């Protein structure tokens, strides 16, 4: 399984990268961590004639706060984000999700931006970013723009990033102080892609009611599905188990998940019914401690 031939470029700046993308358009593929792209190259499922390796664009490898936001450079290694000393509120959905991403070997190379731009329907970080209400920072020939996560994932391995554009960072807005998060998943084996994964972030108000919530599910559609109806049903309410289970069941019933050799569509709905309440429950507990 050897890749089809390609020309190799390793720019060191964003400008250089955009120049190459502008020149090559659809012929080019960006290589960041390579943990998703290299298997596809090896299997010849992807056959770009130009490979643009951006691991040298060090300006994209930053992780820190920007005002009240968490700003994650696209080239931040998944391991770096996993081990970062993030406050334990909503933002913790990111390291919690990363715990399920492959194994340390994968996370040492895989990048946050790479996983998000690749947009595998069963991947964890896209769902986590949707739950947080993150905003994707995209740079192109006409400048920089931000796209909210809920509009960023457009379908099967498809995002808002155009062929001549680059995802440069992920901006995560602040959440209220009493917030917590969880990521729960069922996979065939630990580290495998999620059959279903649920990312949840919850902020609890003074009366114990849900003040704000973000819930997104991986593995049930061609992109992460934000559980809008569940969120709407929870905000302002006490997060009682019966309520959450009912909302989860209604939400699951409305899904048309794929069937494959790993499981039936109804099984995936069942995993949503099973996992979503757990994700919410764990988030609430985290928020209250």
């Amino acid at each position, binding site marked *: 399984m050897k890749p089809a031939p390609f020309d190799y470029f390793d720019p060191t700046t964003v400008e250089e990268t955009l120049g190459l993308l502008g020149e090559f358009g659809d012929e080019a593929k960006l290589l960041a961590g390579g943990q998703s792209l290299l298997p596809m190259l090896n299997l010849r499922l992807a056959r770009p004639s130009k490979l643009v390796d951006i691991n040298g664009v060090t300006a994209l490898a930053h992780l820190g706060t920007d005002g009240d936001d968490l700003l994650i450079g696209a080239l931040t290694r998944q391991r770096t984000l996993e081990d970062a000393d993030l406050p334990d509120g909503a933002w913790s959905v990111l390291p919690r999700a990363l715990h399920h991403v492959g194994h340390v070997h994968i996370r040492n190379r895989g990048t946050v931006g790479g996983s998000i731009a690749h947009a595998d329907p069963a991947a964890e970080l896209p769902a986590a970013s949707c739950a947080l209400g993150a905003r994707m920072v995209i740079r192109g020939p006409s400048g920089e723009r931000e796209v909210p996560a809920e509009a960023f994932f457009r379908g099967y391995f498809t995002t808002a990033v155009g062929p001549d554009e680059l995802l440069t960072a992920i901006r995560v807005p602040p959440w209220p102080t009493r917030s917590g998060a969880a990521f729960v998943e069922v996979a065939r*084996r630990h580290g495998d892609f999620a059959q279903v994964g649920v990312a949840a972030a919850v902020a609890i108000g003074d009366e114990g009611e849900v003040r704000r919530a973000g819930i997104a599910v991986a593995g049930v559609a061609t992109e992460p599905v934000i559980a809008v109806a569940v969120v709407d049903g929870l905000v302002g309410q006490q997060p009682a188990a019966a309520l959450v289970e009912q909302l989860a069941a209604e939400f699951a019933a409305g899904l048309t998940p794929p069937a494959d050799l790993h499981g039936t569509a109804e099984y995936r709905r069942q995993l949503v019914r099973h996992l979503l309440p757990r994700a919410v429950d764990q988030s609430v507990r985290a928020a209250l401690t």
Partner: protein
Amino acid sequence: MGVKMVGARVKRIEDPRLLRGEGAFVDDIHLPGVVHMAVLRSPHAHARVHSVEVAAALTVPGVLDAFSAADLGPDPAAIPVLFPAETSKATHQYPLARDTVRYVGEGVAVVIAKSRAIAEDACELVDVDYEVLPAVVDAVAAIAPGATALHPDAPDNVGATLVYAVGDADAAFAAADRVVGERLDMQRYTGIPLETRGVAAQRDPVTGEMTIWASNQWPHILRGIVAGMLGLAERSVRVITPDVGGGFGCKAEVYPEDVLVPFATARLGRPVKWIEDRNEHFLSLVHSREQTHFVELAFAADGTITGLRAKLITDIGAYQRTLAVINSSLAGSSLAGLYDIPNIHVDVVCAATNKSPASPYRGAGAPEACFARERLIDIAARELGVDRAELRRRNLVRPEQMPFDTGLASVEAAVILDSGDFPAALDQALAMVDYPAFAEKQEAARAEGRLIGLGICVYHQTSGTGPFEGASVRVDPSGQVTVNAGSAPQGQGTGTMLAQIVADELQIDHETVKCVFGDTGRIAFGIGTFASRNAVMAGTSVQMASIKVRDKALQLAGHLLEVDTADLEFVDGAFQVKGSTHARRTLTELAAAAAPGGSRPPGMEPDLESVQYFESTAAPYSFGIHIAEVEVDPDTGQTAVTRYAVVNDAGVIVNPLAAEGQIAGGVAQGLGGALMEELVYDADGQPQATTFLDYIVPGSMDVPTLEIQHMTSPSPLNPLGMKGMGEGGAIGGHTAVANAVADAIEHLGVRVTRTPLKPSTVWELIRTSPGW
């Protein structure tokens, strides 16, 4: 030298170099000037091949050659079937597809280039004119009237049929008090070793001999067949099996690439290497296990089994190659297991389908037979209202009936259970898990909404497959002991095992014995390492050779010391006059004295060496009881194996550490079969599981730690009393775990009749059950 080595738990001589990364697997072998082969494989499950044009491929820079079946000669040889049944039809595979392709992955053309990457580039330019035909993907449908015919010689898609009968099954069923029957299906899966296959070949510039390195389990057989197919004299072909990264029976085959690589080497005049990639591996490694069982048991009122009837349909895939009917034969002839069933009738049909060809994988028919029988016994126990352990105990062959001749024989050997106390083994295993307490534990768990289950599997396996194996033992004039054997191990620790046997016979340090395997150039005849035959066949051969060497040394010592051999004793690796430490000759001295030109008794040939072949077709049967405990999550269908106990009887075990390693590895593979592994095909014959993302093998978090106890009933069939046992884990693991899952959920009114029991499958069973 007082410690007996046979039976000792010593660490392996093989390990240091493997730990250092100094193993030499076939892709590690550097051949200067080597070029690389890629195979263009059919994307269709069934199609006529009207033409294959390689011209465009030859234009790619770096490509040296490209060819198809037309270039193999006007009448190329097909891969032979080694154990044909009388009813076997000619559904052979040729090294490259001729006018028809019959499975996705079948080789259609070959490209040789300076790198594998370039060869793959060029394969894409080979132009093949396919006419796609309907695919047959279900074995039961394949042999039904109206199915598309896959082979001119087998228009009904029946590749072979076998019948195993003893007593009068129909009469027993007519007179039965109760009959319990079911259709039970085992899925298609296989060994998937971590090292894929690979073949490299080079012509020796001095001798003109073609040397072939292949990741395989039987170099002598491979040499004989490949030489024959290429029209070469056997003496001009040498096959070397290097380090092999797992075989599990799947590398005991003659594959098309085994022929294509030496063919390309001869054609090009350059060394050629082909390393199978993982994607190809899922398509072209032998598949196994897929079998449908229509099976029924006849019971007397007291729960005694009076008859067994079955129709087995084996999905053998597109072609019959070397070991084509073995799985079917071993399954059919041993379906009764260790139970005393006087009336048996088993019909086996080998059905052709458009899937990769099937052949033995660890267990070779026994996992299938076990699943059908042990699952049905559990089902029967539930229907008869008898405890499942008690039902087994009532029907096991008793020790006073041993040796027990079942009256049946597979294509390999008669099924005569040679040694063992089966009821005692069952009781020992049940005691290990405190079986009587489980029912209450299960009730308490159910009250909490938890689903736990316990599964029993009583299995046996044939071992020591004949007809022979060979080993030479030589003490060279410097005193170094070297063993050459026909074995071709893939991680079993054969080198250490044989060294332990030699050490006992020659009273030397086992770590000084050098074993060299898998080389047709070093021993004239050999069979190989598969079918749990290594300990029995190579072990006995090496013991025979060691004894001959010792006897020769004794004669020589008597000659040199000028005493009667009756006055000599063998102490600390030297012969000495009894009671005297002065008149003494070490093996080293005797080996030096045995060199030509020295003083030997009249008629004695030089050299302190012996080559011995243990010839035997009687198969010892090892057996065991496996008990698994599981917990099934009713919300996700996931199964955790919480406990696993084994009672294993392999007679005399040379290295218990290695034997337990075989059990543990086998159980992991069996567990994989019960819960996760499957080679899925869609309705068009397109394989769906062609990477590790879709073919799920157990990882470190999926397999429990085993509790193992040994029973030892020495086999009377070889001097050391050994019984091969490497396959038992895979046989017992699949059914013990499947039976445990069934025990966890069948109270809900469902029945487990097929594997794998993936989470989704289990959940669907639970949620559609009447009792949930």
